[in-house]
């Protein structure tokens, strides 16, 4: 090595040492305070799929929002482990009048808000009134509500213009939620003035795209009973639940494997073996979780023809779509019943056309429909990769059956906007999270894009919503599902499950579609 080479080499080496030194200095102290803090017994760090669009639980039906806000806000009712209704801020299930029009809801005493004030009947009346004006779910009930009034100081009465059986389920949902908040934070139909609820955790700090810190609500008044699902007693054992937005799925996996997060939500199915093999981490598979849907435009265009929609159903092979979308058979099930096996509304017989697919049958239906090769405009988005993959398979299957397909790949925000215009599309791919009450399924709402609103469906839905008896409701649901498969407003692709991962140290966790962390603890 000549003199100059050696000197220049020394400069380069010196630079590298300087970088290394910086890193070493940084590295040397990394393992102590930061790890101790993040793995400390009092803080659970949860990696979520992204930043929630809002922390107001009333105005949005976003699942991500409800996962976080269910710790802060509570509703009158909730669901237990069998998806049955249970009281939460209410002290008992409602007394319903014989005509099904009056609900008297007794309130629990001593429930406190995060600001220290006690929940009054006026707060509850104001919250329910706000829900009917601000929540997408509440707005569907609003036309049926005659009045919401206080009965003494410990009960509210909801009087309806006609019987509406799903009311209690709607009041129990944690998104588009009828959250009980102080009357003083309600500001017209807009967002809440401040995020004050009655839940076991309260908001400490929100740094968008960085973290949301929820800390224990020390004056929390828990409902009684053995914990079951979202119902029963709730105890905030962990001092702080910290939600961290981590949009990259691979990073969520790495973070939980490295111990930086104690829980990571919505992980790719193909990472299951890696999680299984890792020490200190266990996989969490959530069943039921959701179902992908190909929603069709029943109002305008070529899909307004019922026979064309029936041809779509006959042309699609759900198994192929599910496997292409999710990859691992452990995470999918070719299930036609809108409610999966093991849930109260499961019915296989009325879902028989789901499995009755054949390209030949589809071609016959297309011929009978008078289809002349008009392009079917299908909207999909790569932001939900599994939906995008399913739509690619659907395109191939539809083309094999004789359809001409124009697959439009859009970003999710564009798809959400375009689907509002009935002249701009024929079908789009989305997914629906499990909901315990059938009337909450979006496709049944005639205002929801797709606009399924035939006279038979309207009548069947009205009869289902009027029926209060659970057994009779099941029979009426079967009628609706039968119509779903004859009028085909959408194609249910099947069931898919959610993979999450949890630290071994996190105890007491119950797998649910909307993960919650009260009644959980961290082993030191």
């Amino acid at each position: 090595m000549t003199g100059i080479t050696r000197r220049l080499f020394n400069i380069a080496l010196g630079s590298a040492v300087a970088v290394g030194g910086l890193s070493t200095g940084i590295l040397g102290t990394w393992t102590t305070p930061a790890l101790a803090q993040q793995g400390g017994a009092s803080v659970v760090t949860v990696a979520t799929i992204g930043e929630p669009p809002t922390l107001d639980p009333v105005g949005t039906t976003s699942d991500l929002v409800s996962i976080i806000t269910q710790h802060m806000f509570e509703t009158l009712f909730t669901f237990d482990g069998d998806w049955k209704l249970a009281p939460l801020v209410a002290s008992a299930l409602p007394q319903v009048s014989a005509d099904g029009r009056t609900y008297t809801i007794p309130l629990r005493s001593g429930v406190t808000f995060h600001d220290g004030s006690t929940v009054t009947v006026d707060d509850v009346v104001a919250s329910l009134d706000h829900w009917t004006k601000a929540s997408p779910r509440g707005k569907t009930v609003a036309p049926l509500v005659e009045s919401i009034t206080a009965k003494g100081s410990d009960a509210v009465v909801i009087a309806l213009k006609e019987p509406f059986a799903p009311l209690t389920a709607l009041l129990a949902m944690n998104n588009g939620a009828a959250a009980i908040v102080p009357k003083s934070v309600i500001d017209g139909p807009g967002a809440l003035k401040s995020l004050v609820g009655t839940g076991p955790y309260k908001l400490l700090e929100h740094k968008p795209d960085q973290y949301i810190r929820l800390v224990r609500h020390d004056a929390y008044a828990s409902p009684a009973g053995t914990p079951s699902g979202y119902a029963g007693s709730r105890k905030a054992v962990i001092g702080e639940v910290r939600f961290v937005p981590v949009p990259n799925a691979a990073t969520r996996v790495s973070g939980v494997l490295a111990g930086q997060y104690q829980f990571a939500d919505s992980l790719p199915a193909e990472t299951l073996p890696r999680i299984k093999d890792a020490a200190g981490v266990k996989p969490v598979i959530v069943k039921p979780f959701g179902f992908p849907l190909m929603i069709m435009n029943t109002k305008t265009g070529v899909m307004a023809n019922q026979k064309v929609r029936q041809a779509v159903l006959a042309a699609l092979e759900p198994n192929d779509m599910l496997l292409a979308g999710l990859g691992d058979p452990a995470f999918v099930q070719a299930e036609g019943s809108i409610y999966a096996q093991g849930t109260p509304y499961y019915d296989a017989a009325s879902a028989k056309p789901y499995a009755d697919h054949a390209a030949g049958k589809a071609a016959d239906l297309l011929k009978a429909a008078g289809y002349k090769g008009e392009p079917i405009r299908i909207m999909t988005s790569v932001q939900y990769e599994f939906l995008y993959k399913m739509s690619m398979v659907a395109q191939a299957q539809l083309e094999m059956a004789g359809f001409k397909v124009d697959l439009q790949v859009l970003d999710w925000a564009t798809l959400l906007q375009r689907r509002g215009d009935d002249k701009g599309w024929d079908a789009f791919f989305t997914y629906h999270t499990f909901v315990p009450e059938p009337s909450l399924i979006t496709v049944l709402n005639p205002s929801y894009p797709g606009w399924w609103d035939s006279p038979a469906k309207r009548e069947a839905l009205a009869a289902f919503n009027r029926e209060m008896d659970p057994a009779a409701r099941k029979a009426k649901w079967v009628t609706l599902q039968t119509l779903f498969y004859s009028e085909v407003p959408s194609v249910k692709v099947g069931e898919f499950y959610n993979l999450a991962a949890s630290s071994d140290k996190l105890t007491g966790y119950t797998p649910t579609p909307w993960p919650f962390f009260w009644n959980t603890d961290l082993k030191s």
Partner: protein
Amino acid sequence: MLVYIVRRFAGMMVVMLLVAMVVFVIARVVPGDPAAVMLGSSATPEDIAALRGRLGLDEPLLTQFLLYLGQIVRFDLGESIFLNRPVVQALAERSELTALLTMMSVGIAMLIGVPIGILSAAKRGGLIDQTAVGLAMLAASIPSFWIGLTLIKYLAVDHAWFPVAGYGPPEADLMERMRHLVLPAIALGIPNSALILRFTRTSMLDVMSNDYVRTARAKGLPPLVVVLKHALRNAMIPILTVIGLTTAVMIAGAIVTETVFGLPGVGNLIVSAVLRRDYPVIQGALLVVSAIYVLINLTVDLLYAVVDPRVRY
């Protein structure tokens, strides 16, 4: 010099106005609706229309643009639709991370690229030169997200030497937050070091073939003095240019690395705002980033006069 700077600032104002107009138009022309994103997938068109009304998005575009221009004149970038805070505050919250990440990654890129580039030029055609050029090609070809994921796998997951992602817990001090930036800075610095290395090498080779360098050698000056004092200074203009460009690009262009490492930087803010159609954030952030670009270019131009006395403004 002063006249030059004043003239450049006047030009910058025109550029900013053009950027403001172009960004406003592009943001609104692109389909998508913040109200639909905010309300969630179950929202009906009626719900979306009602929220659009409350957010003022149903006003005519010209009215919205005039309101926006009025805000800019008052140095007010507006209020984010989603973040529930002024755009200036949202940018300020992310500026520390972006500034630190840019400095660290540019520092790493320079510390690797400049010395090896000089060495490579000094030993042109030799083993060191060929190895350096080969490695530079490799480094420039590897995407930063792959480097990032590899660093996470080996240094964060397998050995727990560094955190996987994020910018530290709320109670983290500056040193601890910097620890979170080491892996992202390396992931960004390596591909950029290749660019700086190649520019340094080429520029040095140009300069070292000049007569005055030969003269300096003939005078018997030590090789290190010839290279570092006589050649390097004259080779600095293209190197400064590429360092300036690299710095400017990293301010909002580290998006992929920020996503892989879950970093809430300015790049991430812009991408999230685009996906959510948060118009005030898109407009405000791009305006500020454009201003920084122009300022960095101005700084680089002024530095030319420092490293090369022949340059006069």
